[in-house]
């Protein structure tokens, strides 16, 4: 220790080593936070005054009836709603403490850091390998032979490698629905996101595929922060540490999953998690 502390820049050195070991060290605990977020389309408010903080490396489930604003909330977080006609917002979304709409933010960089997986698997009309590296290519993260390496690493990460290694140049649409969703996940992971927004990611899949995809989600934390919109209450309980319940555009409840399901504070939550509404 003396050797290190004896040097004039010891503090800086130690800090840099620690940063290498844990890149999240100096960052805010909450990777994403919303502040009084209100979103509307053409004067019609869809989300009202939502303030939440999402701690880094956690899984949060978002539940609530259809039309309660869950998807709108999710799609606002990576600015997918910006170009929707009549989009208006008040309040703010902070990514690592900085507004995602601040002039210094690059929209494409925000979306690279905040990835998304959709309800229906949506592979692009290109080969399996090209699908995985499409984002990597667009961002210029890797090129040439490196792309093959990226493809293999990401396909292994989602457990698809053995199934597709002999048909990397084949069509992604010959894969099963579950495999297609894993492929989309590999594609999203390849650009190195910090947050993944999952919009009912298993609702188009059969139970076996759902199990495989869910198992995979659990391996992604704490490296990533996951936000899962789901209509499947069982899935919310299985996957998440925290649960948010949206009701009519408002955040009716937000707390530890066990509490939200066990001792809900809001009567609407109680009715919803007991299956009386929704």
């Amino acid at each position, binding site marked *: 220790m003396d050797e290190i502390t004896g040097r004039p820049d010891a503090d800086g050195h130690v800090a840099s080593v620690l940063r290498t070991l844990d890149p999240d060290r100096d960052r805010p605990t909450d990777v994403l936070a919303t502040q009084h977020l209100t979103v509307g389309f053409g004067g019609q408010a869809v989300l009202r005054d939502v303030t939440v903080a999402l701690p880094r490396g956690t899984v949060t489930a978002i539940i609530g009836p259809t039309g309660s604003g869950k998807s709108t909330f999710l799609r606002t977080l990576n600015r*997918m709603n910006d170009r929707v006609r009549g989009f208006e917002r008040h309040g703010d979304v902070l990514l690592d403490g900085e507004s995602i709409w601040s002039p210094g933010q690059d929209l494409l960089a925000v979306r690279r850091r905040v990835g998304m997986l*959709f309800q229906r698997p*949506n*592979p692009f*009309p290109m080969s399996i390998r*090209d699908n995985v590296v499409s984002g990597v*290519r667009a961002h210029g993260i890797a090129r040439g032979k490196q792309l093959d390496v990226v493809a293999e690493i990401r396909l292994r990460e989602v457990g698809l490698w053995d199934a597709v290694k002999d048909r990397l140049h084949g069509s992604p649409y010959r894969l099963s629905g579950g495999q297609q969703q894993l492929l989309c996940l590999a594609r*999203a992971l390849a650009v190195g996101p910090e947050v993944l927004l999952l919009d009912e990611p298993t609702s188009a899949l059969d139970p076996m595929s759902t199990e495989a995809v869910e198992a995979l989600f659990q391996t992604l934390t704490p490296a990533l922060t996951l936000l899962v919109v789901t209509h499947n209450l069982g899935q919310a309980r299985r996957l998440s540490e925290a649960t948010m319940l949206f009701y009519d555009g408002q955040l009716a409840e937000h707390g530890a999953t066990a509490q939200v399901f066990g001792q809900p504070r809001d009567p609407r939550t109680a009715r919803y998690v007991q299956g009386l509404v929704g």
Partner: protein
Amino acid sequence: MVEIAPSGLPSTRWRHVRARLFHLLMLGALALVVGPALWLVGGVVARALPGWRWSVLTTLSQGTSGGLANAVVGTLVLMAGVLVLAGTTGVLTGIYLSEFAEGSRGVHVVRVAIDVLAGFPSIVLGYVGYVALCVGLGWGFSLLPALMILSFMVVPYIAKSTESSLHQVPTAYREGAEALGMPGGHALRRVVVRSALPGIVTGLLIALSIAGGETAPLLYTAGVTNNLPTWSLLHHPIAYLTYYVWTDWNQPSNAAHVVSYDASLILLVLVLVMLVVARVIVARTQRHSESSA
């Protein structure tokens, strides 16, 4: 046992009759389309083949006799020129209308302009070309005015087919690309246009067929010549196949009629080859499309 829906009920029988009726109607419509096409192709082939000489492709025309080499090359040059000129303009217009124009005021103007252009009789366009370009600007019968007038004619087809096939690209592709943070141009090239390609190619094919098959506007702008096309865009007339189809047919001699049929056959084969090439291109680029899975 109670019969819930006995097949003899009037309503059921009427349903069968109606289904049969519609089936027949559709068969009739099909026959109306396929019949004339087969008749035309058969007629041309049957008349052209008996007198067919390969030398038609290699010798130049001498008025109403001789070969068609000058016209074959001329038509190919015209088609290639239209592909470049009208192809780029039309595809870019279609992309603009579909991807960038939403909410801007100019769009309305562009759309109306396209509809007006598409509605113009080709002979009027040809005459305008003659008055404004060949005479007005002093270009004479030559390649450039011919290309410009043909392009004016076909740009609307290409723009419209491009626009509508881009509109049919699934939102899921666009959103997927957006969510990855792909730059707009990159997503357009790699994902959107690629999956709209079959429709775009179809538009180009129609345009090329028109360019190869038009006569009226070319009579006014291209002129005609017994010589092969030169490299100059202006002041040199250019020959094309449809000219010989028409003029040689109107000659009293049998030899001229043979040339007329030869020109028709060559045009047919050109269009056929184009169709096959386009099919191959589309098939190659759509190997990974959802519909081919």
